[in-house]
């Protein structure tokens, strides 16, 4: 074997597969994309920020935590989410659409019954092509003013139809109501739905006995209620949450920087969880917390979930497309958004037809 061949082997061994988050780097390209209808120039900056954080959090949670943790846990604690009732879009092909809703949880499990104390931070429609080779991540801005159908709240109360922000569908009707709303708006058959409670991470971290993180510089951020010294240290759940949420007191204040910090944190969390396999007491406490933070519909059983996560892990980042539902400021209230109907329709037609 000659030296070049040996070098190639060494190269192969040193190589890492691109993570799904690599696609986020595309956002660094100058936004001077004049006239791009999917990114109106007058769209408030924070929407993109939220969408990105949401995506990063949802994808990271899905890719890292769920397979390592949730799938190992046999029983599922929370009651499954009922799928929407009434007429639903037909399923035209083998593509898979999954609605992911991330919530900020509030104290205690977000879905103890009425679901009223949880807010949805993040809504993402995940599209896996029929051959599972392509992944589309469509984020739905939570402040979109949309028509919400009549729903029955998790507590059993009837909630009448109305026009309101889409995240209010979650607050009043729970995940099934968002599911129904999204199906009606998009005419896309949504096969499964999953709810992830991000506040559960605080409890997960505590159940793990803290996460070791290197803090590059001392932090004193009253806004994030965070005070940390510089250097390597173990963060408890509260501190860890502040650490991943803080924006201005850490790093360069950009969303990208924060997303990276979140990813580092999630990786550390997954590693620590992985290391617990020999500590059954702590592990079971952790699995309890983790599975309480994730809730799905009954149809999303373990094999289905595993296949979704597997295809997410296998998918090359070039094949992951991040899109936001085309929106513009709402004419009646510039702090709210309305969907750009024709552009949104083009996007969802592609989803329905699984068009590449």
């Amino acid at each position, binding site marked *: 074997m000659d030296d070049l061949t040996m070098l190639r*082997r*060494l190269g*192969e061994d040193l190589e890492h597969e*691109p993570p799904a988050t690599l696609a986020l780097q*595309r956002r660094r*390209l100058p936004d001077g994309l004049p006239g791009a209808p999917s990114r109106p120039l007058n769209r408030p900056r924070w929407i993109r920020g939220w969408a990105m954080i949401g995506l990063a959090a949802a994808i990271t949670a899905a890719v890292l935590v769920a397979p390592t943790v949730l799938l190992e846990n046999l029983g599922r604690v929370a009651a499954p989410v009922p799928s929407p009732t009434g007429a639903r879009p037909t399923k035209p092909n083998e593509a898979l659409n999954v609605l992911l809703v991330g919530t900020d949880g509030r104290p205690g499990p977000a879905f103890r019954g009425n679901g009223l104390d949880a807010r949805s931070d993040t809504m993402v429609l995940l599209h896996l092509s029929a051959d599972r080779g392509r992944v589309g991540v469509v984020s739905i801005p939570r402040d979109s003013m949309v028509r919400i159908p009549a729903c029955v709240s998790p507590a059993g109360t009837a909630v009448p139809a109305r026009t309101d922000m889409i995240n209010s569908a979650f607050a009043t009707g729970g995940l099934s109501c968002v599911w129904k709303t999204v199906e009606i708006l998009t005419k896309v058959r949504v096969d499964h739905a999953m709810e992830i409670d991000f506040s559960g991470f605080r409890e997960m971290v505590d159940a793990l006995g803290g996460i070791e993180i290197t803090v590059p510089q001392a932090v004193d951020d009253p806004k994030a209620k965070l005070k940390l010294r510089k250097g390597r240290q173990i963060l408890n759940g509260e501190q860890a949450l502040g650490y991943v949420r803080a924006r201005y007191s850490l790093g360069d204040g950009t969303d990208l920087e924060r997303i990276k910090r979140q990813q580092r944190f999630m990786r550390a969390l997954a590693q620590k969880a992985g290391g617990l396999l020999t500590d059954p007491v702590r592990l079971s406490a952790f699995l309890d917390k983790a599975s309480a933070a994730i809730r799905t519909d009954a149809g999303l059983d373990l094999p289905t979930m595993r296949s979704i996560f597997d295809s997410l892990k296998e998918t090359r980042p070039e094949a992951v497309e991040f899109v936001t539902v085309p929106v513009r400021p709402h004419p009646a209230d510039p702090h709210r958004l309305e969907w750009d109907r024709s552009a949104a329709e083009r996007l969802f037609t592609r989803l329905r037809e699984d068009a590449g």
Partner: protein
Amino acid sequence: MVHTMTAPPTTGTRDSDLLEESLTRPEAFSALFDRYSGMLYRYVSRRLGPEVAEDLVGETFLVAFGRRAHYDLAYADARPWLFGIATKLVSRHHRTEAARYRALRRAPVEGVVESPAERVVAEVAARTSRPVLAGALAGLAAKDRDVLLLIAWCDLSYEEVARSLGIPVGTVRSRLNRARRKVRAALGDADPMHEEE
């Protein structure tokens, strides 16, 4: 699937067409990102590890975007150009890179991606000589290493390497020869099984 709906069908479009289009329609540039970000990530992850790679790939495209007006449209394939930009950015991290190879020299298995279980005997030889190889890489002059790795890891031709680094082909040859001589010397010294071609 959901290519942002602004993006026209780009299948089969040459890189140079995209670059030309991006002069008047900057969003056309993102198609290059979709095409090559994974490829560049793999390359950079080999040299610097996954920690820096993501950021560096983003930076590569940022630099490329800024320089797109200077791209010679006679070349349909933009890969050498992108590899060249990434390589220049990698060289800013030469300490990280050398440390990475040196670490490999000390602990040949750690930090190395798992390889498929069944590999032939030759592979065993490759594995045992890996620390030596890594040590030799760490010891190369940075410019020689750039040329060697663009050839060995990116499969560029001499001409493409010359273009990507902005140096004459003759210089590519001489740097490559020097680098390979050093690598072979290291291997030859350490591995009695190895035969000179």
